[in-house]
């Protein structure tokens, strides 16, 4: 992420905070437009294995109940590094560390909430 993007992210964070929309630590690092892209990615692309409604398919369900009690950092590591020996691929390269963390927190809280 460039310095310019970071600055933009901070401004977005400030706007989100002022509107009361911040959804947890780390969320503010992701610009709003990228958040929309990531939400779409989760639904449409993660959804090709985990189901568009995230209730599972070839991959496990990713609904809040399924993720309860798991640490966000550990889940983000699964997203970034994949699970060797299974179809879960490493998303590092397509997603940054912050983005993976943002995604798992959104999943844990419910994507629609």
């Amino acid at each position, binding site marked *: 992420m460039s310095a310019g993007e970071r600055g933009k992210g901070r401004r977005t964070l400030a706007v989100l905070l002022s509107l009361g929309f911040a959804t947890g630590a780390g969320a503010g690092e992701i610009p709003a437009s990228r958040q929309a892209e990531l939400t*779409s990615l989760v*639904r*449409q*692309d993660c*959804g*090709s*294995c985990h*189901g*568009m*409604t995230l*209730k*599972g*398919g*070839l991959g496990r369900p990713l609904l809040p109940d399924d993720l309860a009690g798991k640490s966000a950092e550990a889940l983000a590591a699964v997203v970034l590094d*994949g699970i060797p*020996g*299974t*179809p879960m*691929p*490493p*998303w590092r*390269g*397509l997603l940054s560390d912050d983005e993976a963390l943002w995604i798992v927190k959104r999943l844990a809280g419910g994507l629609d909430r």
Partner: protein
Amino acid sequence: MTPFRPTVLRWAAVAAWLALSGLPAAAETALRGTGDLGIVIERAVGRVLLVENSGRRRLAEIAGLGDLSHAAAVFSRDGRYAYVFGRDGGLSKLDLLTATVVKRVEQAGNSIGGAISQDGRLVAVQNYEPGGVKVFDAATLDLVADIPATYGDGSARSKVVGLADAPGNRFVFTLYDAGEIWVADLSDPARPGLRKYTGIGRQPYDGLVTPDGRHYIAGLFGEDGLALLDLWNPDAGVRRILDGYGRGEQPLPVYKMPHLRGWAQAGGKLYLPAVGRHEVLVVDGASWTEIARIPVKGQPVFVMARPDGRQVWVNFALPDNGFVQVIDVPAAAVVRTLEPGPGVLHLEFTPRGEQVWVSVRDQDRVRVYDTASFAEVAALPADKPSGIFFTARANRIGF
């Protein structure tokens, strides 16, 4: 005078049908066939578009079909009805002439596709949860047979993938978790005959029946290779083909599972997606050995031969899912790269292949290309389009 009476009645019936149908095209032509009709899945809104490939136009929307992510469809042999398999386990029977839902059943919790039998009387659905295959009467959607995909000590049930129809009113499918291929003979639907082939390989992800109905092939995710069953020689068992095609190299990440369907055959060769390699594998359909591998832009998802077998079109997983590449069969090389737009999920040729329809999810468009000039000839609006299915599938083996 008497000959007039039946005629009057017949026209009255047509008028009544038109009044009820609500089909825009019906206003222009009283009667029509379905041979150039099809459906486009609008995956996020639980709706399908009824489309006509001659006019390259939308005719109607049919809504209320539930979760259609990864939805697929097959057609009745008369081409009038579509059976749509939804992710949520919904099985919907649509009438293409009236653009209505004839019947809908919730048959499982998590479903992935289906097939229709050789005689057109049975529709089979493959389910992830609970893992197995359910078979329905194609006319009524009444349950005819339930085949749980149990394996091991019998307590576990496997997700089922790669369900295809085969001659002899058989359905062939693959157990993802168990690594097994099962052949279900439904010539007597009340007593399905089951033959199981175990140990076919790790993580089979999909399967296909060749267009002649003779061979079933399951692709493996967990190993470099594919599993082949000769349905003419079922006693010979399943054998491995293209074993170790990755040559032990570290596979590339696969951001979407490839799909296998019986469109892969062209000129006696099969064109199959490699897994974890940006290649299309070319297999000799007689010796079942690899004869070439064609480098492509990304991880192939669908590898589909044009109906005449002269071209093979390929789409890709992320991050290359904005592209489509065209392989020229005699040249055995990519001759064209198109960029329809982000989220190319599926493509479907018109029955004789002069055009191809491409769903572009992230642009909410279906683009239609001329397959000779590669020119875009139409673009239709569609909400997050995924699968495109034309009624010509009704008359093909393996669907």
